[in-house]
């Protein structure tokens, strides 16, 4: 279980309650298709990719993404979110081996 680098961040700097902001999530993760061969051994590299991304706003599920190997490696995704209250925003990355990476950020409307 390698520890993976990931980030969730609200792109807009200033926002108030009722605004629609854009949120960006990135994870440093390979996207092995299962069709590519290893350059040295010639063996097929097994399929290994990010399967699902779930977003929770104050622990309530808001949005979920399903990814497949045609997404690029180190997937970067932006999505909209309507700010209704202050609190936390949590992202859960689940990869094809069911390894979970979680990151949180604070929502501070002004």
């Amino acid at each position, binding site marked *: 279980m390698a520890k993976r680098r990931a980030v969730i961040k609200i792109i807009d700097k200033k926002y108030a309650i009722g605004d*629609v902001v*854009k949120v*960006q999530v990135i994870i440093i993760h390979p*996207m092995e*298709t*299962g*069709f*590519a*061969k290893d350059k040295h051994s010639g*063996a*097929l*590299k*097994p*399929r290994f990719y990010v399967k699902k991304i779930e977003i929770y*706003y104050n622990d309530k599920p*808001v*949005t*979920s*993404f*399903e*990814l*497949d*190997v*045609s*997404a*690029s*490696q*180190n*997937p*970067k*995704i*932006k*999505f*909209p*979110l*309507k700010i*209704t209250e202050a609190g936390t925003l949590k992202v859960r990355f689940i990869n094809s081996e069911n390894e979970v990476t979680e990151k949180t950020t604070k929502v501070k409307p002004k």
Partner: protein
Amino acid sequence: MMQRRDFIKGSLLLSAAALFNPELYRHRLLAFEEAIEITYDQAVEAFSAGKKSVDGSALITLDIPTRPGSAVTIPVEINVKSPMNDEDYISAIAILTTKNKVNKAVTVDLSPANGMAYLFANIKLGETQEVVVLAKTNKGVIYKASKKIHVALSGCE
């Protein structure tokens, strides 16, 4: 003599069993099994469940570079015109490719809590092909928009 013959037969059988032992090839077999190809029709069928799509080029704005520098990461930006209130909203958006081995890239589930129908994601392309975007409303209508992307170098090794 009979004993020697039996011994040879037995050893041959044993070595044959070792040759065809699937445990020895397990990593190979797994790698082959896991590489599942998804055709474009299968990807569309999985998203729309048999419904026909309507031309939505007036509603869907695609922002993809026509000739990207690298095919490994191609930014895809989608904006769908929708009021996004409880009666009428976009419930899902899918980015599909047409000539990759796996023609499914990213699918998102949206709700009125998002306030806007927007998606940005990076995809990779194996060759010059059309990128298709499908958007599903809460009433089950599917809008389709596509753009041809010219790729000089393959993004898949």
